[in-house]
């Protein structure tokens, strides 16, 4: 009981510090690494909440694939340092104020309509495979079969889009010094 609660607060602290570090660090590579820490802690939260399959998918898909893609693009563009010379100097303080307003609003809703009690304990039969690959797969391939298939079309469209967007048009590269590659 107390162990789980203290583990929650420790992990919540790590998650918030990692998110803050992502926001504030000057170097985009450090931001990406902080975000990976955040994703890892959220994966542990998923484990605490009885979702082992989602936790593993979080680690492989988010912390693995997506963040590697981010780091790859950051290093490809050499855009890890960007001078923060803003055209709109009044915008950052306003954004912080609006963010705090949003947080207070959400806090009010959570406190007034919140679910203060711990979630009900799962029954023996439900607890056996709750959130495991078998239970998720059974639901995914029966109730959610159509959305699952639509997802494959979405991924195909994203793949084609990414290839088309980054393709070098060979016909247009006749113009001198317009296509000097952006290696560094």
């Amino acid at each position, binding site marked *: 009981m107390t162990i*789980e*609660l203290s583990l*929650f607060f420790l992990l*919540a602290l790590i*998650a*918030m510090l990692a*998110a803050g570090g*992502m*926001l504030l660090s000057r170097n*985009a590579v450090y*931001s990406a690494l902080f*975000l990976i820490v*955040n994703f890892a802690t*959220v994966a542990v*939260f*998923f484990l605490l*909440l009885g*979702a082992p*399959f*989602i936790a593993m998918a*979080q680690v492989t898909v*988010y912390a693995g694939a*997506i963040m590697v*893609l*981010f780091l790859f*693009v*950051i290093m490809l*563009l050499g*855009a890890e340092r*960007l001078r*923060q010379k803003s055209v709109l100097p009044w915008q*950052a303080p306003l954004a*912080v104020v*609006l*963010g*705090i307003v949003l*947080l207070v609003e*959400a*806090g009010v809703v*959570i406190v007034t309509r919140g*679910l*203060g009690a*711990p*979630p*009900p*304990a799962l029954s023996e039969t439900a607890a056996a495979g709750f*959130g495991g690959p078998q*239970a*998720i797969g059974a639901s*995914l391939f029966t109730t*959610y079969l159509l959305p699952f298939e639509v*997802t494959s079309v*979405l*991924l195909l469209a*994203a793949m084609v889009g*990414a*290839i088309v*967007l*980054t393709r070098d048009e060979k016909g247009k590269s006749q113009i001198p010094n317009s296509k000097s590659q*952006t290696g560094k």
Partner: protein
Amino acid sequence: MVPTTYYIALSAILFTMGVAGVLIRRNAIIIFMSVELMLNSANLAFVAFARQFASLDGQIFVFFVMTVAAAEVAVGLALIVAIFRTKKSINVDEINTLRG
């Protein structure tokens, strides 16, 4: 068990940090990472509610959110690379014209 309220509160805090990141930072890649942070906090809320109501539907939705996030990252980073090729910058303040 930790009360569901705590998880929802943490999810709200992380979401707000993502919103602040989108509004404050000028680097397009960092803005993109903040969007990922927001999606992830929504996932946390989904899983917390799935546990509260002992229903797997919330976890299935997290699965779909992850898929959409992966597709979004692939296309978005391709867009950033294409913009960087023409403008030589990914500062969103400098990307203010429709033609390259």
